[in-house]
């Protein structure tokens, strides 16, 4: 049983001896259950059209940014570039627009992606179960869907319009995807968005426990992105410092020894390097978070969803992992659907 008091106690306890003990436990559990391996993946942004207005997001519908959607030819070019770096696990992302990036567009994208990557995950607008089923049978292995915050009041205040404003539809996404047969599901909260981090974590853990119990065959992973400023404006209710961030990763590992924990390039290299030993099992490498950012647009033309802090290449990350006695895993899955 996960206790709220336990979470709160860990997050407020700044005794270095206790934090070290927690980190030791997390580190040891990670090695026991995942061995000395770290899986690598990279994102490709397909489109930044978005019909949702989420106050904290660089892509939201009221922002005056240039909107792009990759064509067939363009996505081929981007995918080839990423695959050439050695990446085999790909995360394909769009803004949340049913009109601009409907199921048919996603299906076409997956058709192209299958030529380059053995493992395909999507981070796109939430869909219905039959749509997930269609995507699964077409070759989609994973779905990433973050609730951002489980605090309904706060959720309402930051998700002003669009499909994302429907809290319950979003919260049910993982269930619909799991019921459709999707193999891996990534859940997460945007740290700092809600003022009560302990409560948000507790609710996320409860969500995960519910999913584990009802859809035991799915491989789950969690992500803990920290909220960032957009053009100088701060949307965070609380600031999650490095110490708290590390405690969250370690606490998660001790509560869920077998669940994957992802870490994106929005975190600084030094922090990522340390986190590797504590509970992280998957990390992105060589990432670009703009549509067409790898090969099509010059840096000054790009409007990234978030700023990348760790700009090291796939090769540099691979070398780093080996130096740290960790085995970089590129292939986690091989497509078996006909």
């Amino acid at each position, binding site marked *: 049983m996960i206790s709220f008091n336990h979470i709160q106690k860990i997050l407020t306890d700044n005794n270095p001896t206790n934090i070290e003990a927690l980190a030791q436990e997390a580190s040891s559990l990670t*090695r*026991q*259950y*995942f*061995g*000395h*391996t770290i899986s690598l993946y990279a994102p490709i942004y397909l489109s930044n059209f978005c019909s949702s207005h989420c106050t904290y997001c660089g892509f939201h519908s009221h922002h005056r940014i240039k909107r792009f959607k990759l064509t067939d030819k363009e996505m081929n070019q981007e995918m080839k570039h990423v695959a050439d770096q*050695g990446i*085999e696990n790909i995360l394909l992302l769009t803004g949340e627009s049913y009109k601009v990036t409907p199921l048919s567009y996603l299906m076409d994208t997956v058709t192209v992606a299958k030529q380059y990557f053995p493992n395909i995950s999507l981070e796109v607008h939430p869909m219905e179960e039959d749509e997930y089923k269609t995507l699964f049978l077409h070759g989609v292995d994973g779905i990433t869907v973050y609730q951002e915050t489980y605090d309904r009041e706060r959720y309402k205040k930051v998700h002003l319009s669009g499909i994302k404003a429907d809290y319950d539809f979003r919260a049910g996404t993982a269930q619909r995807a799991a019921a459709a047969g999707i*193999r891996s599901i990534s859940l997460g909260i945007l740290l700092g968005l809600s003022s009560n981090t302990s409560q948000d974590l507790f609710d996320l853990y409860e969500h995960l426990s519910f999913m*584990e119990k009802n859809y*035991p*065959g*799915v*491989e*789950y992973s969690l992500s803990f992105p920290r909220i960032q400023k957009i053009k100088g404006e701060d949307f965070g209710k609380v600031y999650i410092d490095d110490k708290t961030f590390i405690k969250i990763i370690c606490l998660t590992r001790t509560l869920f020894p*077998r669940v994957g924990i992802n870490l994106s390039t929005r975190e600084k290299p030094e922090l990522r390097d340390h986190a590797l030993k504590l509970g992280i099992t998957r990390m992105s490498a060589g990432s670009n978070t703009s549509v067409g950012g790898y090969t099509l647009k010059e840096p000054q033309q790009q409007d990234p969803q978030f700023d990348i802090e760790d700009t090291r290449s796939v090769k540099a990350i691979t070398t780093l992992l*080996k130096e740290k*006695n*960790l*085995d*970089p*895993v*590129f*292939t*986690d*899955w*091989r497509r*078996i659907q006909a």
Partner: protein
Amino acid sequence: MTTRTTETKIADAIEDTPFFIGGKKLTSRFLLGTGKFRNKADLAQSITESQTEIVTVALRRIDLEHHEENILEHIPKSVTLLTNTSGARDAQEAIRIARLAKESGYGNWIKIEVINDTKYLLPDNSETIKATETLVKEGFVVLPYVSPDLYVARELVKVGAASVMPLGSLIGSNQGLKTKELIRVLINEIDIPIIVDAGIGCPSQAAEAMEMGADAVLVNTAVATAEKPAKLAKAFAMAVQAGRLGYLSNLPPVKDTANASSPLTGFLYEN
């Protein structure tokens, strides 16, 4: 008395009875898994030091794109490759993975792992039986990984499995032989090789399984996550041999109390 025990009586305490799986005669009774190692050199050295003759590799982890990372480049050709179906959630997926492994040229030895619970990683016995049946018919040498259960094991024998691989405890848990008494039943009643797989955390636990009469032991996590994997792999191989010799020597039974005279039958000898 089972056939197994009769066999051991005629077997010399040092010269073991031959050990066959899928028609292949094996000298080593130690099988090694290849996941979780910190690098490929540690794996290669662990194979050499333990002198294992069978290693399991997850098809999903065979990286064809990166030569240096391709695990197969680090496994000697003399070692039999036992591809496993890790990632399969039902019989159909396991069957597809097995076929893909064969088509890719990795041979016809397949370890069936059907796991539809990512928290405990316990195998789905009924789906495992289905997959075994189909794959045996297709000419595979099938080694199914199961929770120890007598009826399941009998069914596996019936459909043509080459061995039964019962788990000692949860994968990666290092808890040892938590299912000991259930495995003992399989050892007593099942005439195809019993290979204890999963949960074996230290050499003494491997010896314990072998002393009891298991035909072989498979280890992965304990070796891969040890500080000195090759040393531990060797220790496991030696423990497996020691346990086997112990078994062949017909170990004297363990007793809870000292042996008094004959309180129950002593009267027979009284005048």
